[in-house]
């Protein structure tokens, strides 16, 4: 059987492959900063493509669909930046200025808790739990104080990226099919059908998942912001956004997201009644999320077993921290799709081989 057009041996092929791969790796490694806008544009193109596909049906030409999307999104972004951004920035400034205050009050709070508990349960003194908690908290808070302003500056003020990403994104969207098919040409005939099917399935699930997550985060954030605003919490926008983003992490996320809001609220009002309102409000948001949003979002993307989700979360968390937690579910989903397709392929061949005709 002729395997390909060129007559290379297996050894030659493998060597060529390894050499190409190492060159590619070196290239990406040395110029990693240049690749960042392209990578971002690639991910964005991935998310926006289905919207453009649908718009293309209305506008007939793809370029008009993309231009319409750009104008629409530009106006939206402009309104958002003009009205919401100053609020967020002022909140952020306030928060960074007040963080030491929060830190010291929490510290005194922990110390008073420690003394009262150690009187009742002397065994705690031996275990020294509070000291370890305190030292851990100190590290975390210092990290947050250092990291928060830097994070916002580094992500929002690199003008070159802000200009480059939309341009690259435009061409990614415009030449979507061309880019894909030129990539498909490289795949050998033998694996063509299966690999394209694999790519399609992964793309569909991952795209649905990412779009769903974006939608979910947006809705949960808005609800949380409104609840915090009506209760009368400071920094309602930032705390609401934190709750919304943390909500991405299954099971533990909503709890983690509520902790900053609880601390800030308690330190402002110094009463537990107000916390009850917050817990009820966040509970209703979780109810909406779990009963309405999640079934819609996850029915078309990743349907994974809860135990498997827990396992991937723990694995992701131990490997990559917070980022690991966030990317654990999509990566687990991709692995699940790959395994299910390959196992189906194998089972097709096995079952039909046992029963001839």
């Amino acid at each position, binding site marked *: *059987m*002729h395997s390909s*057009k060129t007559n290379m041996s297996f050894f030659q092929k493998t060597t060529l492959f390894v050499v190409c791969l190492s060159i590619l790796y070196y290239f990406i490694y040395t110029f990693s900063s240049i690749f960042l806008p392209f990578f971002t544009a690639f991910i964005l193109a991935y998310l926006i493509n*289905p919207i453009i*596909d*649908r718009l*293309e*049906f209305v506008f007939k030409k793809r370029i008009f669909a993309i231009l319409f999307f750009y104008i629409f999104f530009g106006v939206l972004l402009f309104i958002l930046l003009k009205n919401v951004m100053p609020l967020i920035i002022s909140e952020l400034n306030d928060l960074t200025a007040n963080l030491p205050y929060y830190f010291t009050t929490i510290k005194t709070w922990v110390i008073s808790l420690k003394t009262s508990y150690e009187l009742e349960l002397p065994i705690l003194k031996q275990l020294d739990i509070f000291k370890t908690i305190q030292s851990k908290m100190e590290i975390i808070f210092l990290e947050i104080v250092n990291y928060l302003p830097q994070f916002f500056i580094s992500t929002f003020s690199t003008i070159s990226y802000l200009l480059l990403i939309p341009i690259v994104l435009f061409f990614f969207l415009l030449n979507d*099919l061309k880019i894909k*098919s030129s990539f*498909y*040409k490289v795949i050998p*005939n*033998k694996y*063509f*059908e*299966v690999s*394209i*099917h694999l790519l*399609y*399935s992964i793309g*569909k699930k991952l795209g649905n998942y990412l779009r769903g997550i974006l939608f979910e985060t947006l809705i949960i954030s808005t609800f949380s912001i409104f609840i915090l605003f009506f209760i009368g919490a400071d920094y309602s926008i930032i705390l609401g956004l934190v709750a919304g983003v943390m909500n991405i992490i299954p099971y533990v996320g909503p709890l983690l997201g509520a902790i900053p809001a609880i601390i800030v609220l308690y330190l402002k009002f110094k009463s537990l009644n107000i916390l009850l309102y917050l817990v009820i409000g966040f509970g209703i948001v979780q109810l909406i999320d779990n009963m309405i949003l999640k079934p819609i979002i996850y029915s078309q993307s990743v349907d994974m077993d809860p135990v498997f989700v827990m396992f991937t979360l723990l694995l992701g968390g131990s490997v990559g921290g917070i980022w690991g937690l966030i990317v654990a579910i999509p990566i687990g989903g991709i692995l699940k799709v790959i395994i299910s397709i390959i196992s*189906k*392929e194998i089972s*097709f*061949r096995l079952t*039909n*081989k046992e029963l*001839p*005709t």
Partner: protein
Amino acid sequence: MPNIFWDDIFKLSKKASILEVLSNSPICKDLSRTNLIKISKLVHLRQYSKNEIIFNENESGQCMYIIKSGIVEISKIITSKKIVLTKLDDGSIFGEISLVEDTPRDATAKSIGKTEVLTFFRSDLLKLIDKDPRLSSFILFRLSMILGKRLRYKNIKIK
């Protein structure tokens, strides 16, 4: 040997020939040129050398094939004996059931000589249903016509 880099730098002849093949295939017959161009963006052109297997029996099928040039032999193994069902040439289609259903392939397809085929994936058809319902329903209509024809042929054979 033709110079692959310079002979047809804009690939115009390739595009034209893909449109021609599509317009001659039973599934895209009578479509307007704009619609044919839309379909031509979805199909992938694949080249097979002499005696290369295109797909094996019992592999999972994901796409339909349209022969652009060359001859394809469709065979099936019945009681450990290879039986050639048919030989197809330019413009004919095979593997069309996979366009609607995710089932294993019924038969093996092998290229006899050097063959060029266009592949049309089920996922692309599903996307096209969202994108352009008119065009995709026309294709589905054509597809059901072909499947109906095959069914009738089989019924006659049974009688």
